[in-house]
């Protein structure tokens, strides 16, 4: 079974802190994603990466950055956390998507509260 592991399930951080959310997948997937999920807004894509050291902005990249130094690891960074970044963050991975698409596998999610 594919496993996508997010390092922290629940975090509480202060406004202005730098926050790292780590994600590791064990299936040698090319693609990795970071989404945030908020009530009524569904899953919104923050960033995704289709290869090591490659990244693409999603719909809401402002206030976030990412790092992919190794294929299996994709990190989401909040340079200076703000209260409006309180949310549930989902990491995901998939094989390289072609025209027929590929299943996306999600981690358990990280609940971040910024106070």
């Amino acid at each position: 079974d594919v496993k996508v592991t997010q390092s922290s399930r629940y975090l509480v951080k202060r406004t202005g802190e730098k926050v790292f959310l780590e994600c590791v997948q064990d299936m040698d997937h090319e693609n990795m994603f970071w989404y945030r999920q908020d009530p009524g807004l569904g899953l919104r894509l923050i960033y995704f990466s289709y290869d090591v050291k490659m990244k693409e902005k999603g719909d809401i990249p402002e206030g976030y950055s990412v790092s992919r130094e190794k294929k299996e690891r994709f990190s989401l960074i909040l340079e200076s956390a703000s209260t409006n970044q309180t949310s549930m963050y989902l990491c995901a991975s998939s094989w390289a998507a072609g025209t027929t698409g590929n299943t996306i596998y999600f981690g358990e999610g990280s609940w971040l509260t910024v106070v």
Partner: protein
Amino acid sequence: GQQVMQIPQYQHVQEGEDFTTYCNSSTTLSNIQWYKQRPGGHPVFLIQLVKSGEVKKQKRLTFQFGEAKKNSSLHITATQTTDVGTYFCAGPSNNNDMRFGAGTRLTVKP
């Protein structure tokens, strides 16, 4: 950019009633995927539709892909309490990432 719209946002049904959620895209999709997220859980892949007009069934769940490949639906016959959760559709964007609808949250009254 490509958008995937999903309705309704919420649906509350009595156990045994049917349920349908609809997904519409602003552009033609090469494929569409459906996911289910149980309360407190993470989204889990249900199915992928690729062909125009395709219909697939999984027990009480019926998935359809429109002829124009711009819309899709998920229909659940005779809902059960185990169907509770949020159902998402997702389609590939021009960048080959997947864009999700806002989801339909289903609650079932026993």
